[in-house]
């Protein structure tokens, strides 16, 4: 998988077909999490898997398409966070390429980093669009507490995002990692395959 050119814009047909599948996986992750009443979103497994398989650019596209489609079909507010999802795909893809999915420990680190960066990207959006809240009850409670103690808005808003994003992304990346490790050879090969035809 090291031979793969990370920033190639020449997508194979398989990469194009992967994008809708990954968006579907995001959607079902979220669906099962709510059916099982889990206290997390787990709505980026597809994005992370796509970037592990096909690189950061495909991962980023999955992120954008995911939120555009979700905005179109359920909640227009999610258009705003298309950038966050794109960055999640990008970061996961780059770090996966650099070997941060070789074991569970590294995968956890990857999850924390993805969560942090997601929060960094979300914070200006939250401030710009809604003065710092996120709509998540726990996060917003922390946000309110920090404001009450006269901490700066940006810091409170950042903390608001962190407490929500980091645990969620750690779980998301960990589950994606487990699934990725278990992918059949024929799938991994299809996405690694920049190979040449060998003439016998």
């Amino acid at each position: 998988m090291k031979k793969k050119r990370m920033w190639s814009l020449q997508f194979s047909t398989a990469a194009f077909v992967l994008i809708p599948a990954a968006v579907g996986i995001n959607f079902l992750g979220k669906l099962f999490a709510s059916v099982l009443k889990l206290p997390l979103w787990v709505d980026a497994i597809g994005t992370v898997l796509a970037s592990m398989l096909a690189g950061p650019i495909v991962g980023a596209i999955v992120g954008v398409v995911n939120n555009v489609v979700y905005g179109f079909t359920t909640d227009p507010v999610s258009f705003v966070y298309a950038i966050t999802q794109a960055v999640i795909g990008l970061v996961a893809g780059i770090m996966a390429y650099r070997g941060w999915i070789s074991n569970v420990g590294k995968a956890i680190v990857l999850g924390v980093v993805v969560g942090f960066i997601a929060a960094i990207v979300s914070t200006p959006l939250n401030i710009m669009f809604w003065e710092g809240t996120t709509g998540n009850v726990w996060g917003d409670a922390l946000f309110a507490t920090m404001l009450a103690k006269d901490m700066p808005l940006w810091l409170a808003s950042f903390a608001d995002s962190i407490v929500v994003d980091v645990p969620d992304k750690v779980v998301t990346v960990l589950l994606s990692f487990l699934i990725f490790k278990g992918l059949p050879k024929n799938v991994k090969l299809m996405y690694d395959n920049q190979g040449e035809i060998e003439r016998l």
Partner: protein
Amino acid sequence: MSVLRVVNLKYKYPDSHRFALNDISFTVEKGEFLGIVGMNTSGKTTLCYALSGLVPHFFKGAYGGDVYIGDMDVLSHEISEITAKVGLVFENPFLQMTGAKFTVYDEIAFGLENQGVPRDVMHERIRESMKLLDIEGLQGKNPFSLSGGQMQRVAIASVIAMQPDVLILDEPTSQLDPEGAEEVFRVVEKLADEGMTIIMAEQKMEKLAAYADRILLLYDGKLIEDGKPEEVFSREDLNEFGVEPPVYVKISRALGLRNEMSGLYPISLEQMPTERDIQFHPVTKTNNGNTTSELIVRDLHFGYEKGQDVIRGLNVTLSGEPIAIIGQNGAGKTTFVKLLKALLKPDTGEILLNGAPLSETTAAKLASRIGLIFQNPNDQIFKHKVIDEVMFGPLNIGQTGEEALANAKEMLALVGLADKADENPYDLSLAERKMVAVASILAMDTDVVIFDEPTMGQDVRGKSKVQEIIHSLHEKGKLVICILHDMDFVADTFGRTIIFSNGGMLFDGPTREAFAQEEALRLARVEQPNITKLVQRLGYDRIILRATELI
């Protein structure tokens, strides 16, 4: 000039050391119908991929020899140029719908738009191909709302509209129910009559015997024989290559009926000699006398929506010998077995397992008593290794790690996958994955085992494996219930058959009697087994279930 010419074709998939195709050469002339036969790993699909350029361009790997389509060589052209001349239709109808179009009409247009066909020509070609495939009535429907047989016809129409020189069909009916398969065979016959050059890989040998001008027999990537159907099917060693001859050949072989001139067996009804008098000695399978668990169903009613009963007042006792349930799609068979497994709750009526009502237990608790093997193994497999997948159920119902491992190993051996225990289930073929799902339920060592369509997509060897499994479960004193579409298999395997139609039972009794119930079979839209039909067409008024019953 030949439409298609294959010269010393050799191919290995990337990361594999085995030749999937090994030194294959043949040619196809315009208007020919070429059949490809062979067992599941023989290379049929790879050959179809090679003829349409997917091997090597999509799969990469190591490629030797040449394939020419007309005067174009496959190796130095792109897939889109090749598929303009060669149309490919494969097994899974659902995956051939692009997903980007919301009506059948637009779906057929997808390829034409990509090819840059002018608009008015496009409309004309879409209409023509819909007419040819008899799907004009579906043009405004969403492709995903169609039945498998309809979808497969849309897939063929989409390819035909691109006006290829050759049409390649890779087991187009293996994932369809009998009705859908018939729909597809009808249009294949029509296309062949229109003079289309067709290459078809297929497991239903009766169909190939009827349509094909020539047959290629493949085994382990090699071309064993390229000959006329009667020559290929008359080979005495055919079974060694995992291929079962058409029923006519089986009967003729049992009776020793060869054409005296050619020494070949007849492959169609017309070729069957009529002068030979046939004697019969029907063998009735005797129950081994083992007692099994007993399921009693009393006045069972169930509907997914109020007022629309899917199961209408069922009364039956299930115990003893293995039982086959037959009937068309939508008759309520799967709903019935889900009720038996308490995955659904009856609206009224009750089900008793060894005298105790199921309503007092939950599906998860019942897991250790009743095993249900669903049609599609892909709905359940999620572990990285076959062995872990098989151990999931046993561990859930409280077997210890050692017990679970021992049971899993035993069952993997029974289904013939002992050497695949450490592989990833998704690296296996669909037929093998079905066997993983079977083992994963059997390892829970339940008293009752219910199969939903275990033979679908299996080749001859797979089917005889399923038969072996059913016998072995019965030997161990388990109650086996089986939903089936494959009547030949029912005739050969089961002593008791239930005919299901419209949420009720039309018949329940010995299999031989079941296949004598012409009215019930007609209502349930089920055909008699091939051999039964054949014997009747030869003018005998007997219900025959196996070739070995003929003298």
